[in-house]
């Protein structure tokens, strides 16, 4: 099990695009680190730099304490699963799996053994003589996985591997990947823009935006204590409701609604309050400390229903049980479930009382 760390990685492309702007991270041995972010945030560039397909403009990468600088892609001991699989169309599945081993000094018998073993693991044993063009998307995905696995790399890299599959297959493959990661016990870096994938697969989550890592930590920590407004809106579906307002005494005054401020909050004139839809309490009858709200949109999601409500002049979204909701409802949010951010910098403001209580 290997350990990878990156320090201050900067990548500026020849056309002046600053794809990575000083990124530092650590992938723990035997754990899955997910790079999560919208397209164009630099996550794929970072992955390509780790793979050795691009050189960083500055910054260092260390795999098990050794610098990766100048080490060509083929010698890094990394296996990369491409978004579009990039299988060799003119080779059979067996050929695709064995090509990497042929370049190493591995005997024919051993190559054969390892190809069969990998195919067995992925359930593609009966496809070994087919060509990629004869396989379904899910099967191609398995072969792409196999091509990385068969080399027994020190580090596995995944570049949005599930984004080309249809929804049903994606969920199945996601579960398979998860159990595969647990069986192989390898160090994995996984790039995705799908936060459900990130939540379910990763041990560590790094949320990226405009070439920077905004927050890194276990996925539930990131979900519970998002470090910035960007992280808060990107992690968690349906997304968090955010209200901006001015501080007035012990309350944040928004448009037509006020939110009670926690006691330990550091002073800041303009604040953002964030409430996750799953934290909003709803009632058909008036609630103590609640606000009257008007129901404007109902989106049934199956087990849950997503309501869009108007409170004063603000919009709040609430996730709740499917029921017949009348137009007039009352909403309330527990004080400790409100996330606070500085409206100017977007940084999280910790409620000191809460922090003390948590530790």
């Amino acid at each position: 099990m290997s350990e990878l760390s990156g320090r201050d990685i900067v990548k500026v492309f020849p056309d002046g695009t600053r794809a990575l702007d000083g990124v530092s991270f650590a992938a723990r041995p035997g754990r899955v680190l997910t790079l999560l972010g919208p397209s164009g945030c630099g996550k794929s560039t970072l992955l390509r730099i780790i793979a050795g397909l691009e050189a960083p403009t500055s910054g260092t990468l260390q795999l098990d304490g050794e610098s990766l600088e100048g080490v060509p892609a083929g010698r890094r001991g990394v296996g990369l699963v491409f978004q579009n699989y990039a299988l060799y169309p003119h080779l059979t599945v067996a050929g695709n799996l064995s090509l990497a081993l042929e370049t190493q000094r591995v005997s024919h018998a051993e190559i054969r053994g390892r190809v069969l073993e990998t195919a067995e693991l992925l359930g593609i044993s009966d496809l070994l003589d087919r060509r990629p063009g004869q396989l379904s998307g899910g099967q191609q995905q398995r072969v792409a996985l196999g091509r990385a696995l068969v080399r027994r790399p020190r580090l596995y890299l995944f570049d949005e591997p599930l984004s080309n599959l249809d929804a049903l297959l994606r969920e199945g493959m996601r579960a398979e990947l998860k159990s595969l990661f647990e069986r192989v016990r390898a160090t994995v870096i996984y790039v995705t823009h799908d936060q459900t994938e990130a939540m379910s697969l990763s041990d560590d989550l790094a949320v990226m935006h405009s070439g920077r890592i905004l927050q890194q930590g276990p996925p539930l920590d990131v979900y519970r204590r998002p470090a910035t407004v960007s992280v808060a809106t990107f992690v968690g579906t349906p997304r968090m409701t955010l209200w901006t307002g001015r501080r007035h005494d012990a309350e944040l005054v928004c448009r037509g609604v006020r939110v009670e401020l926690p006691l330990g909050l550091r002073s800041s004139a303009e604040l953002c309050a964030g409430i996750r839809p799953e934290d909003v309490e709803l009632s058909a009858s008036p609630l103590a400390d609640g606000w009257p709200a008007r129901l404007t949109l109902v989106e049934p999601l199956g087990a849950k229903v997503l309501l869009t409500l108007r409170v004063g002049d603000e919009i709040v979204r609430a996730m709740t049980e499917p029921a017949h909701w009348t137009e007039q409802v009352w909403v309330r949010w527990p004080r400790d479930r409100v996330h606070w951010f500085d409206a100017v910098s977007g940084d999280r403001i910790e409620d000191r009382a809460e922090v003390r209580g948590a530790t």
Partner: protein
Amino acid sequence: MNRTRLIEGRTALLVTFAVGLVLAWSLAPAVWQALTALKPDVQITKVPTSYLPHPVTMQHFASLWERKPLGLYLANSAWIATWATLLCVAVAAPAATALARLPGRGREGVLLALLMLSLFPPILLLFPLYEGVRGLGWINHPLALVLPYAALNLPLAVWVLESALRALPAELDEAARLDGLSTLRRLWRIHLPLALPSLATTCILVFIFCWNEFMLALTFMTRDTSKTITGGIASVSGASLYEIPWGQLSAAIVIATLPLILLVLLFQRRIVSGLTRGALKG
């Protein structure tokens, strides 16, 4: 419904007619040549023209075969054209692979420069090449043609191969890099197999050029046993200065063309099978 069918029918008729016209236009000289080769001498110059040979005669082929070492000419042509093609493609393929991965500006510059080179009329090269070939003592040696042929066809070969290789997804090359394949191995195991149809096309085009080339072949190959088929045909002359042996010349041209036709037919099947391979669901 009926109306669209009518229009479709009319279009089909027009297309058939147009294709027939093009075919007649391009094939007529070749057909005329072949017919002439099969006519007895009296019929060739007869007025009014008689179109079909009657009786069909192989006399021109027979007398030509007796007079000239045609087999040797063909063998020389095949030998020289094959080596020139191999050399040309062997140099063009790595060059095209490298070019295909150069960023825009650099690639276009090199390709344009190559195009400019191929715009020079070959006759400009005749004298310097002749001096060079004589200086090296290569008159009547296959190398005197193999090297210029390979060089003259390089721009074409690089252009065709570069566009084919550029169409390959960059990820395939990256996957191969991660699999630890060296540059040469990637060329051999990934790029060339995937560009096989274009490679075959390039080979055919270059081979046809080498086979048909006349000026350099005539100049550098002076000994009868070294001549290629084009030079050989040129040396077919009549009994006197005023007699042109049309029948024998036509026979020689037919003999020179047949191998090319066979080659193209053979390769064409390869190209088609290369294109459809792996596309069929099992």
